[in-house]
């Protein structure tokens, strides 16, 4: 499991900052690329392994809503998103 931690501005903004953990389970990832298409700053495909990973420095630009959407649309449920109080926003398989 490859994890990236990043302080993100949550949406809506008045809720304050949250620290998200975005993790891609490379055993489950089939390299479909939905996450890269939806949130190109936050995910990238490693062409060597054919799997996706989170890009820590790109999570801010993607934003919480898009990260959650990308995780929910992963065809293999390989993406896990957890906020700073441990709440699992999207669970992987």
């Amino acid at each position, binding site marked *: 499991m490859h994890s990236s931690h990043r302080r993100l501005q949550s949406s809506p903004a008045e809720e304050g900052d949250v620290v998200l953990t975005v993790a891609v389970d490379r*055993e*489950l*990832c*089939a*390299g*479909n*690329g939905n996450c*890269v*298409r939806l949130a190109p700053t936050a995910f990238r*495909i490693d*062409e060597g*392994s*054919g*799997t996706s990973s989170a890009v820590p420095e790109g999570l801010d630009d993607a934003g919480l809503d898009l990260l959650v*959407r990308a995780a*929910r649309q992963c*065809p*293999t*449920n390989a993406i896990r998103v957890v906020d700073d109080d441990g709440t699992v926003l999207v669970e992987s*398989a």
Partner: protein
Amino acid sequence: MEGDGTVLLLERPSATITLQAYAEIRAALFDPNLSRSFDKRSFADGNVRDGVVSISHGARHRSRRRVENTQFRPERLRLYERELFPAVLERILDRETASGRADLFEVGALVSVVLAARRAGLDVRDDDRASQLALVGHVETFSQASAILDARDPDVVRRLAREALVAFEREYVRPAWGPREAAVDALRRGEIGAEDLPHDILTVLLLHRDEAALELQDDGRVVREVATYLQGGTHTSAQTLINSVDLLQPLFERDPTVRDRVVDDRSYAQRCVHETLRLRPTTPRIKRRAEAETAVGGRTIPRDALVVLDVAAANRDPTLFGERPDAFDPDRTIDPDVARWGLSFGGGPHQCPGRSVAGGFPLASSEALSSDHLYGLIAAMLQAVVRRGVRPDPQHPPARDTRTERYTRWASYPVLFGAAQAG
């Protein structure tokens, strides 16, 4: 009874469970206990799907998809949609519509098969009509074999598929195999770089076939894998083109300006295609087999149950698609988290890898289109035939494909071309 040409009965399921609710079907598509290996005998014994990615499960499926998905990256799709496809489309349409009449099934299949062949790794010239037609014939047979669970006469389909696979390998795959294998060898010797390799499924299979997890040592499996991508890339596009024209025709008759809108606005053309896919999925009922007991939507599904996912019903859920879900309304407003095509490309691990080729990127109602947006090849085909004034031939009614229970498929759809206003 396998292999002797006699009727192979389906393995008897422990139960048959039909799901019709959108959320339940989506959950079932993601459930790792529900596999596509629902009838091993029907998909073995020479069937084009024997051992291919689309009926694989678990780790082998993921390994193959990782390798094959490299051919569906956005930059590759952009190359097809913006550079390769427009020229091929116009050249073939000029040829096929010159007489003013044609069968739209043949037109759509010819256009689609040339591009699907390139993605699959077959060298078919776009000016060689005879070779293209022969390939369309093989695709037709492979489509019947892929839908064998819905075939009215599975034995006939099985025999035809065996014969077609032999000819397909000899006439198309082997001539393409040699040069690609040589290129892979050259890469391994360091004589060329990875970017110099052909960008297609056959090449990546040859490049990676030594990886044990892919289980591709058998040449026949490579041939069938290529055939699967060729068939998948051709059949849905051709059928959806026909269904789009069929659904749009009443709109054209009520308001001739709709033709102009299709021609002038590609995002509208794309919504027409997505609306067509929603109402007329090429696989109206997806099937799965329970490898182990599981539960979907609170309902227990016993091991070995046949699970029928009624996509056609789920795609007409009024809570998701509006008060008139049966109507063809490309302008309908829907939840941005729901694809406009519903579940017609499946979902979960087996979601159609070619969905972005055929349908482009998903299009939400309020989403501003980025410069990277792709509209899909069917939208381009639809615009091109509407621009040429496509309309049903009143002297020759269309015919449904009666060889299958999949009622959204056509065997022929005679059309006339000419002035757009002539319809």
